[in-house]
């Protein structure tokens, strides 16, 4: 019974990792590649480590495996976000068929701060606007 469970879990994990590797080669764009690797590979690694935990059937091994799975689930989205952010700043182009770039013009180019695009006006213009509003009132 445990053998069948181990075979099913490890086969599923290996298939997910193989699909992620194929997608990593075939995808047209750095951002799509990042999205492929974070999801499919995390699932595959979790399944194969779970099969190892079932094979040993020991509390210390199971807790170690759970620690590894938890760590990978916590860190892989963070790492993907960081590297995607860095590649967006370095001017990496998106795929030419992608429809929209919602971050376009919303990052301040020098300080790399994200905003809605309205608070980049110069302080002088803001002051002038305030004075105008006061005059109108």
């Amino acid at each position, binding site marked *: 019974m445990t053998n069948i469970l181990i075979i099913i879990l490890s086969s599923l994990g*290996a298939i997910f*990792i193989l699909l992620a590797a194929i997608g990593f080669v075939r995808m047209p764009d750095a951002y799509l590649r990042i999205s492929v690797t974070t999801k499919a590979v995390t699932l595959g690694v979790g399944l194969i*480590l779970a099969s190892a935990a079932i094979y040993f059937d020991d509390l210390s*091994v199971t807790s*170690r495996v759970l620690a590894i799975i938890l760590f*990978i689930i916590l860190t892989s989205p963070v790492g993907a976000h960081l590297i995607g952010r860095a590649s967006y700043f*370095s001017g990496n182009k998106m795929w030419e068929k992608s429809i929209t770039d919602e971050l376009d013009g919303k990052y301040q180019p020098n300080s790399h701060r994200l905003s809605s695009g309205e608070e980049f006006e110069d302080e002088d213009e803001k002051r002038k606007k305030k004075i105008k509003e006061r005059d109108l009132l």
Partner: protein
Amino acid sequence: MTIEEYLYYVILPILAISVLLVFCRFVIGPSIADRVVALDLLITIGITLIAIYSIVYDQSTFLDIAMILGLIAFLSTVAFSYYLEKRNRKKREKQRRDD
């Protein structure tokens, strides 16, 4: 066919093929972000290889090394992205000063 044989002759070759595919992207990847992600992915597949080997040779201590590899993978990705971003910022400031 025992479970060890199944893992050794079916699962390990699949993982080896996926390592080769990722390594292709590591070599040809056009931008540096692709290479960093490929490195991260190679280490993550290495964790699964270690898990499979620990089942095949019945040595549960191999999993400690898998844990440390996971730590190193995250650390290297964070460091690479930090320095990439810093480099871009410096380049842009220099451009601005030249203008």
